[in-house]
């Protein structure tokens, strides 16, 4: 704000006062005018009353003298309305008949009459007062201008002290205004300085001298709060920059708002980054699509992005959209971590497992083949016993190796999980009867609820059947009494297969580890229930390869619900719920 000079305030103040005074003056004047007229009217009536006592002949002869005494024009009129004498007209006989005049008319009726009108002989606005006597009428007239002038003169005499008072008030207000404006200017100066924290102490000192204490308190409070905020900001910034993960904050249009030091190192980009589009800095179509997906669905997602040689990097990017209400216009955070090394290691170990499994399978096939041949040949009971054991263990080993090979395949070629659309009814018919039978043999009831019309599912048929078998096998294996239920439903974008059992259940602390390779629950270990702990991890891998998911809910002693979500429209992006 520009500094306003004192006189400007003063001018405004003065003008308002004068404007307020004008109507007051007008009212005073009109009031006095009325008052003067009344007073004159009264005076003239008194004169007329006195004059009516004087014999008319004497009035006629002394008209001019009497008019001078009463300071007005005197007219004597007879009963017929003829003017007999007039103080200002030399030949009254020439004057017209006055009977029609309003004041005479009034006097005729009431004895006394008033009126204001223009005199025909003198051409002036006059006040007329008439009285009725025995012989005729007496009339006194006074020009109104005289009355008005007198009222105005009186009003003017009032104006002088009023003007003096006005001046006094001007002077006083000027004095006070100056004081207030000086304080205001100081306040303005101080508030302009509030933003600069280094001035805070000097500012406070200055304020102690010049400003009222309450303002000083406010300033003190604000500057304290600000320095605290600055400190917090510094702490957060340090945290932001110290992290090993690259962080990028983008706005809704995927433009960079800010980035941390690690990100700058990742990008090795010397240019200014803020304001640039994500695409300009990291040209990767999958990344943009994943970020847009996260923004439109407001869900956190994770995405692996691979850069071809020469960079040859693999990055894992966590994408977390921030709500519009809390972050102006909606923003999104990307956290980059370089997983090139771990990816390479994973690939190597995966290949290693696959190779080993493959190498083991060849001799194992020979063992199984020869054991079976021997079993057919040998009739001796003790030898058969050993051979049966060898066969059982070899079969077990074969299953393990098959599972490992399948896992390796799912990992390296997830697209193999897809296939031509299959009819779910038909696929289930292949897997359900054997488990229904197994359940019955164990004394469990087995239900399946599959709606008659279902969309086709684009999955590899054999692998779908294996996933069903793994889950049903678990359900039957871990249930001692009660039932196993399979239920297929269509839920929005997903087709769900829910397998519900009334088995021993899984303790809450074990739930997060389900689906990890070779992880077996405590109960499974205690209960001597056979298995390698690969079944669920195979199902989990399959679902991830499909872009769906496996959800397991369980309560100990009450049973377990395993749900498979098959996406109906195969999305490009594998969405995984993030912890944030």
């Amino acid at each position, binding site marked *: 704000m520009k500094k306003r000079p004192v006189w400007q305030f003063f001018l405004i103040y003065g003008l308002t006062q004068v404007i307020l005074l004008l109507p007051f003056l007008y009212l005073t004047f009109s009031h006095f005018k009325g008052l003067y007229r009344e007073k004159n009217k009264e005076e003239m009536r008194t004169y007329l009353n006195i004059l009516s006592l004087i014999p008319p002949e004497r009035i006629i002869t002394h008209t001019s003298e009497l008019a001078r005494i009463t300071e007005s024009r005197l007219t004597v009129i007879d009963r017929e309305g003829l003017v007999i004498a007039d103080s200002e007209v030399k030949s009254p006989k020439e004057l017209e008949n006055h009977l029609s005049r309003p004041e005479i008319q009034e006097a005729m009726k009431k004895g006394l009459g008033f009126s204001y009108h223009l005199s025909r002989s003198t051409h002036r606005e006059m006040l007329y007062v008439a009285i009725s006597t025995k012989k005729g009428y007496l009339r006194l007239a006074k020009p109104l201008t005289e009355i008005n002038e007198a009222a105005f003169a009186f009003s003017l005499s009032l104006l002088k002290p009023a003007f003096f008072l006005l001046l006094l008030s001007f002077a006083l207000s000027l004095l006070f205004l100056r004081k207030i404006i000086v304080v205001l200017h100081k306040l303005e100066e101080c508030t302009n300085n509030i933003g600069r924290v280094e001035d805070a102490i000097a500012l406070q000192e200055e304020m102690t001298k010049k400003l009222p204490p309450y303002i000083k308190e406010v300033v003190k409070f604000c500057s304290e709060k600000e320095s605290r905020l600055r400190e917090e900001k510094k702490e957060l910034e340090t945290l932001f920059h110290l992290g090993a993960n690259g962080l990028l904050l983008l706005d809704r249009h995927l433009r960079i708002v800010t980035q941390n030091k690690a990100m700058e190192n990742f990008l090795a980009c010397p240019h200014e980054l803020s304001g640039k*589009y994500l*695409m300009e800095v990291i040209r990767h179509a999958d990344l*943009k699509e994943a970020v847009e997906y996260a923004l439109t669905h407001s869900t956190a997602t994770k995405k692996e992005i691979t850069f071809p040689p020469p960079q040859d990097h693999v990055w894992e990017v966590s994408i977390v959209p921030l709500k519009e209400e809390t972050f102006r216009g909606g923003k999104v955070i990307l956290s980059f971590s370089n997983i090139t090394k771990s990816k390479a290691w994973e690939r190597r170990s995966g290949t290693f497992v696959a190779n080993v499994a493959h190498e083991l399978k060849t001799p194992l096939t020979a063992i199984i083949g020869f054991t079976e041949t021997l079993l057919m040949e040998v009739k001796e009971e003790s030898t058969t016993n050993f051979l049966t054991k060898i066969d059982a263990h070899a079969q077990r080993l074969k299953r393990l190796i098959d599972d490992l090979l399948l896992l390796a395949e799912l990992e390296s070629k997830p*697209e193999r999980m897809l296939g031509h659309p299959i009819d779910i009814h038909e696929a289930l018919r292949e897997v359900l009867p054997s488990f229904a039978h197994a359940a019955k043999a164990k004394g469990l009831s087995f239900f399946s609820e599959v709606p008659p019309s279902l969309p086709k599912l684009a999955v590899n048929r054999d692998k779908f059947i294996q996933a069903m078998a793994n889950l049903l096998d678990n359900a039957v294996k871990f249930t001692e009494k009660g039932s196993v239920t399979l239920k297929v439903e269509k839920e929005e974008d997903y087709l769900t297969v829910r397998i519900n059992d009334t088995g021993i259940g899984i303790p809450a602390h074990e739930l997060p580890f389900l689906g990890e390779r070779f992880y077996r629950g405590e109960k499974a270990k205690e209960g001597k229930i056979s298995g390698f702990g690969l079944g669920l991890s195979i199902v989990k891998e399959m679902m991830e390869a499909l872009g769906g998911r496996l959800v397991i809910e369980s309560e100990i002693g009450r049973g377990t619900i395993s749900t498979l979500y098959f996406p109906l429209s195969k999305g490009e992006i594998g969405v995984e719920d993030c912890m944030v």
Partner: protein
Amino acid sequence: MTEKKHTSIHYEQELEELREKIIYMGALVEKVIQRGIRALVERDSHLAEEIIAQDDQIDRLDVEIEEKCIKLLALRQPTAGDLRFITTTIKINGHLERIGDMAVNVARKVLILNKEPRLKPYIDLPRMAELAQSMIRESLDAFINKNVELANKVRRDDDLVDQLNEQIFRELLTYMMEDHKNIPRAMLISQIAKNIERISDHAKGIADMVIYMITGQTVRHEEAT
């Protein structure tokens, strides 16, 4: 664009959006090429099918970008740098769309090739494809960072790709002469090489347009320096 601001914030924003879109288009095309090479080298039919399916997305973006450019030209009457930027974008857009089509062509041929045994181990073909891919990447980098030097390098690299193409053809001829049963496969591989050679030509075209955008000079029909 970024150096000086326009008086109309809206216009500025439209230009920036266009820039982002064309870069995205570039990223998509790069991805397709990268996957095309993988499908070829790893003999992955599934990947090849995905590439063919993804061409729709590139085609849609092509139309969208072109419409945006025309709208900007009609409504804003751009001049100087802006005009060069928009016209360059139209041309680069066309090149990128053609590259996407080439990748689809390669993918189609890969599908046929995969049904038959491998004719020979690929050595020069992946090298050529990687070179073409890096040419696209560098031409787009040159466009984004307004780097004339890099654009010139892309123009020079085109000759290398041409040489590799000839070399591959000569090699394939020997296979064809050896056994006439090899001819269909050798022809397919030769066509793939030709497609990759066309891709590098388009990358060179992009580099030409980048030089035009930055300097205003037309270098389209001149030899690379």
